[in-house]
């Protein structure tokens, strides 16, 4: 999705406000953080689906609201879309139906926090690209979730690291299927991305799945 979240290289957002060192600005943000994580542990959606839900925030709202407002929007959307709550329940705040799911207890939560959710999968295919190979990012403008930043579309780079095969984010966000794809770290020279507007002696490394890339 070529949405407001795809911020790399955009202008107009001004200097960085370094005084904003806190993790949470308001207390409700902590609640949103906690609710999102514990609801996510019920397995009704995956991380890529939750990212896509946040990306579907209206662009103006996305850019004018804080990070945890995106999370709140995404959480509400996912709860309703998965049928965990109804839109009526969301607006009224009153539970009117039962669910078969049961909340993650602290023991489960503790385990998940420290085990995480690794995305690496066994390699079933050989990697199409090899170390130091020149590649190019394909064009594309999917309306669905993707992890190709716009600023690197059509740009040439070099494979700098092979990360093995990981859950392919685009498919994971669509169907929930854990399709393995090779993941590469690709090095792009600043001037190949930004032309003569690049800062000297700078480069960007981006982790990209095999289907995003083509050989040159």
């Amino acid at each position, binding site marked *: 999705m070529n949405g407001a979240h795809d911020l790399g290289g955009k202008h107009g957002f001004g200097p960085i406000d370094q005084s904003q060192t806190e993790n*949470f600005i308001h207390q409700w943000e902590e609640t949103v953080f906690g609710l999102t994580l514990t609801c996510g542990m019920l397995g009704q959606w995956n991380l890529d689906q939750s990212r896509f839900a946040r990306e579907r925030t209206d662009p103006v709202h996305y850019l004018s609201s804080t990070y945890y407002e995106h999370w709140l929007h995404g959480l509400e959307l996912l709860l309703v879309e998965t049928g965990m709550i109804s839109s009526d329940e969301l607006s009224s705040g009153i539970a009117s139906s039962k669910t078969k799911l049961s909340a993650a207890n602290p023991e489960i939560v503790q385990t998940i926090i*420290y085990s995480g959710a690794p995305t690496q999968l066994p390699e079933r295919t050989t990697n199409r690209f090899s170390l130091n190979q020149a590649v190019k990012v394909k064009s594309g403008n999917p309306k669905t979730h993707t992890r190709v930043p716009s600023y690197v579309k059509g740009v040439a780079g070099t494979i700098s690291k092979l990360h093995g095969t990981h859950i392919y984010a685009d498919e994971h966000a669509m169907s929930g299927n854990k399709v393995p794809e090779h993941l590469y770290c690709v090095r792009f020279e600043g001037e190949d991305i930004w032309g003569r507007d690049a800062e000297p002696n*700078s480069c960007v490394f981006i982790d990209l799945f095999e289907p995003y890339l083509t050989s040159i």
Partner: protein
Amino acid sequence: MTEDNGHKHHHAPPSEIEERVKKLESLLVDKKLVDPLSLDLLIDTYQNRVGPRNGAAVVAHAWTNVDYRKRLLQDATPAIMEMGYAGRQGEHMVCVENTPEIHNMVVCTLCSCYPWPVLGLPPTWYKASSYRSRAVSEPRAVLKEFGTDLNPDVEVRVWDSTAEIRYLVLPMQPAGTENYTEEQLASLVTRDTMIGVTQVTLN
């Protein structure tokens, strides 16, 4: 959580969004989709237990132990796990090393991915549009804003964490700290130095 932050309007009348969140929380608790104890545990964990002191310990250990440094740079996930740090948003770690020739900094332009087990949750500026937009296209200007004025000879490497790999910057150990203990060294290492927007100094 800290109560003394001027941004936290605990004593002001509840805003629309506060009401919205409260309503959602009580709905989810009523429906037994959320266990309030789990909620408290999650918030407490990331507010009080997991934070940049973890990363600082990793960095200080790498500075004082050549073998560990090698392991960390070669395969960061198990090396960080050795120190007891692992889990969500740190499942696949890569550690990138600052040298006199190379400076690394980390961003996530598409959302705000961040290595939670070693750095905790990201600061607000890391999640803001200005940092996310500018870090990749004008990293030197951004670094300058943070007071990090690099020689033009130094290559700036920006890591845009678009997939599930999370990056930790291993800053350079400042001169004059050769006899510091690991604990003393760790106390010098700030969050910003491990994101790569500043360098470790003796201040």
